């Protein structure tokens, strides 16, 4: 089976031409400033099930977003078509919209001296020279190995292998044009196990920018199998206040709530419980949170942010104290501050790991709940109120006793942050937030 779509993502030169065309058209139509963002990617994903390929999907996407400014009024347009006439039409549409928007004092491009004219070249693109046939073979092999791990494993819901080559470009009318290629490769294995009437699902995955950093098929198969089987026989626990450990994968979501609460967009809308908290103590003094935007091969790295501003190693929390908000040009102006190069988000936010691994954290906790899965989206950023569905394990004497499910955990994010007891050394580096497991002193668990 041959991948018949052999043409590459549009070349850098072609994308640059699209950008110049759009900026020139905006100028021709009288815009004072303009900016364009292009995200192009190409790749494929395969899914195997029951020893055979189930789906093969070829992806190639382009999203082009243009914003024009007439003084402090703006208009935007997006499209997926790079033909010159389509680009011109989109710019025209954006110009049309700008006739009806209001003057916004905070609107406009970054100041010229903030732009990353000499941005570093990062090592973020590592093409995975894998054929569709080979990817299918890997997926089938992963499923086979997973099913052999335990006879209670009933089937695989899906095993998938995917790879994508992407190119991001940002250009504006101040003469900035920047672009860089990136890659992302994933293997995931989702299994279903059954014992009596009890049926459970769980998964394992590996994801990396560099294919040499992917975990092996055997590792994924084994981990997925262990995870699904250990959930069988889950019970509910009694409603009570107990210490809680968020396993590293779920600790990421907890820090994600912190990120949202210090993000400029929520702050200027007064929609954050961390409004007016700069230089205040939010976490215990051992907590240090910093971003590392220039790490080679990391999926969260970027040489410049969505405004074209050079990224930097911002420290957000030091000694438990909030040092900085996460701002882009627009939100910074709204707040009367300076951009922190976080338009579009943070880059490899990392919480300094502690000395104990997960087993060590369990010992520290002694008795309580280890959360390995969360459900729903019950975090209210305006108030900090937090209530979500959960599953995991009941722990006593520092050891896992039995799986639990159909429970909720609730508290206030302010209290959860302030009563963080420890961060594990078991750092999960697969996402844009890098953290070990996190032990929280106490949360309300609702069960039977």
């Amino acid at each position, binding site marked *: 089976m041959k991948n018949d779509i052999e043409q590459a993502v549009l070349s850098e030169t072609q994308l640059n031409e699209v950008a110049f065309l759009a900026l020139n058209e905006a100028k021709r139509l009288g815009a004072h400033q303009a900016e364009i963002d292009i995200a192009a990617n190409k790749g494929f994903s395969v899914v195997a099930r029951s020893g055979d390929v*189930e789906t093969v999907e070829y992806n190639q996407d382009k999203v082009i977003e243009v914003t024009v400014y007439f003084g402090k009024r703006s208009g935007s*347009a997006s499209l*997926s078509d790079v033909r010159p006439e389509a680009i011109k039409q989109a710019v025209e549409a954006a110009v049309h919209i700008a006739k009806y928007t*209001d003057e916004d004092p905070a609107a406009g491009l970054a100041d010229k001296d903030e732009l990353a004219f000499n941005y570093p070249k990062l090592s973020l693109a590592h093409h995975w020279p894998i054929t569709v046939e080979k990817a299918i073979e890997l997926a089938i092999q992963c499923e086979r190995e997973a099913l052999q791990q335990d006879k209670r494993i009933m089937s695989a819901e899906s095993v998938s292998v995917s790879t994508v080559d992407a190119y991001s470009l940002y250009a504006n009318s101040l003469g900035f044009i920047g672009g860089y290629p990136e890659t992302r490769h994933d293997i995931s294995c989702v299994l279903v196990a059954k014992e009596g009437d009890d*049926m459970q699902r769980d998964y394992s995955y590996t994801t990396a920018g560099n294919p040499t950093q992917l975990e092996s098929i055997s590792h994924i198969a084994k981990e997925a199998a262990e995870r699904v089987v250990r959930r069988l026989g889950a019970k509910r626990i009694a409603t009570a206040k107990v210490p809680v450990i968020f396993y590293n994968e779920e600790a990421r979501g907890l820090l994600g709530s912190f990120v949202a609460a210090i993000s400029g967009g929520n702050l200027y*809308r007064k929609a954050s419980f961390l409004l007016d908290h700069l230089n205040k103590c939010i976490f215990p003094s051992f907590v240090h949170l910093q971003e590392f935007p220039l790490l080679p091969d990391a999926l969260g790295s970027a040489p410049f942010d969505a405004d074209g501003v050079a990224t930097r190693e911002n420290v957000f929390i030091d000694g438990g104290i909030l040092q900085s908000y996460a701002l882009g040009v627009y939100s910074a102006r709204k707040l009367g501050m300076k951009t922190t190069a976080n338009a579009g988000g943070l880059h490899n936010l990392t919480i300094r790991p502690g000395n104990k691994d997960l087993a060590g954290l369990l010992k520290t906790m002694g008795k309580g709940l280890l959360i390995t899965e969360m459900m729903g989206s019950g975090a209210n950023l*305006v108030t900090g109120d937090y209530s979500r569905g959960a599953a995991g394990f009941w722990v006593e004497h520092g050891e896992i006793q039995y799986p639990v499910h*159909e429970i909720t955990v609730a508290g206030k994010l302010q209290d959860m942050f302030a009563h963080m007891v420890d961060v594990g050394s078991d750092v999960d580096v697969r996402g844009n937030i890098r953290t070990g497991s996190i032990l929280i002193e106490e949360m309300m668990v609702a069960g039977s």
Partner: protein
Amino acid sequence: MGFSMMTSVIETVRHDLLDPAGLTDNELQRVIHQLAGRRIDYADLYFQSVYAESWLLEDGIIKNGSFDIDRGVGVRAVSGEKSGFAYADDIMLPALLQAASAAGSIVKQGKELSVKAWTKLPGHALYLPVNPIYSFAEEEKVKLLQRVDRYIRDKDSRVIQVSVSLAGEYDTVMVVATDGSLAADIRPLVRFNVSLIVEQNGRRESGYSGGGGRFDYHYFMQDDTAFQYADEALRQALINLEALDAPAGPMQVVLGPGWPGVLLHEAVGHGLEGDFNRKGISAYSGRMGQRVASELCTIVDDGTLPNRRGSLNVDDEGVATQYNVLIEKGKLCRYMMDKRNARLMGVQSTGNGRRESYAHLPMPRMTNTYMLPGESDPNEIIASVKKGLYAVNFGGGQVDITSGKFVFSASEAYLIENGKIGAPVKGATLIGNGPDVLTKVSMVGNDLKLDSGVGTCGKDGQSVPVGVGQPTLRVDELTVGGTKSS
């Protein structure tokens, strides 16, 4: 009106999607025959163009607007359990042939599938084929947002932040398939949202409301609908200012009518989608004909409601949507099917084959999912509860289809004490087990209500607009995820 309407829709869509590229039936036949030259059971082409706009008011000014165009064609080849899929974001013959070649590569060359002659499939005419973007002049759109903003700020001085947005899209689709299907649909969709923040004595709380459906912007002007959303957002925010900590633990819960039907979407709906049941990995697998809910519960998925956000004249495989009874008087009687899962399970498509766009594969998805009304007076239902929770508004939800565990998050709830509605409590997540929860429904109100048109359902990374609804329900036990020991 049916047939003539469909004919004109097909001609309009053909003009918009195919004519610019000079694509005629001959070229489409060529692509379909190229696919059918392989050992496949089925193949289809899905042409789509979406024109969308949005306008945002924030801080009292029209902050931005955007206009978005997305056009493309998806090509799928199916053989047994296998699907090959590719798409192109320009509708041109070379790109189409290339996509077809890639999609078809999932199976070897083989005996040619005989392609049936295309016949226009019957579809509904549930909404007018209008482009909402042109239903208001730009000045009118902007003015509506400004008026709603001023209205709600003037109404209560505790309002410190208001965001109002208006969005509309004009989505045209056309499907042709080897089984002879030829169908097209023009799908308008509009949405109006108000979110605001109030502050009192240093405490800030938020409120949100909105709605929409498959019509044009005039809907928001009728009966001051847009202003009512603002009133509702304010009401919720003010109630939140008074809210106490929510209780924790299992208790009797009364769910209000309308949007709380998200319970049905999560607890039942997803578990009855054909793909999970074909694989035998749903908590409802193998339970056809069994009792999965109390006798009071009849639950339908209905894609045929006029103008509803979750409705479609034809699904994304060209099949007319249906009124599907999923659970009748407590008994499980139907799964929701797309063509592929239906073929593999030896049944018919139920008109639930949906996809986010041309760049995504179709799957069985819900449309508008709701419970039919019962006989109880809603006041009687509340009066029957000695101690419990009355939950009337929700955020989103989520379900683990295999274990059946589901959550949904209340955003407005009250304690019930001795049959009376008491103090408001803070938002809390409710958790339960799908196949159990409906067996615990002990009273069903006579007040069926559908939501206001705000639902979006996510599955395998694909989002589609949906609707939910229900009458007031009493559930004898659900676990409430508050912070206060009860």
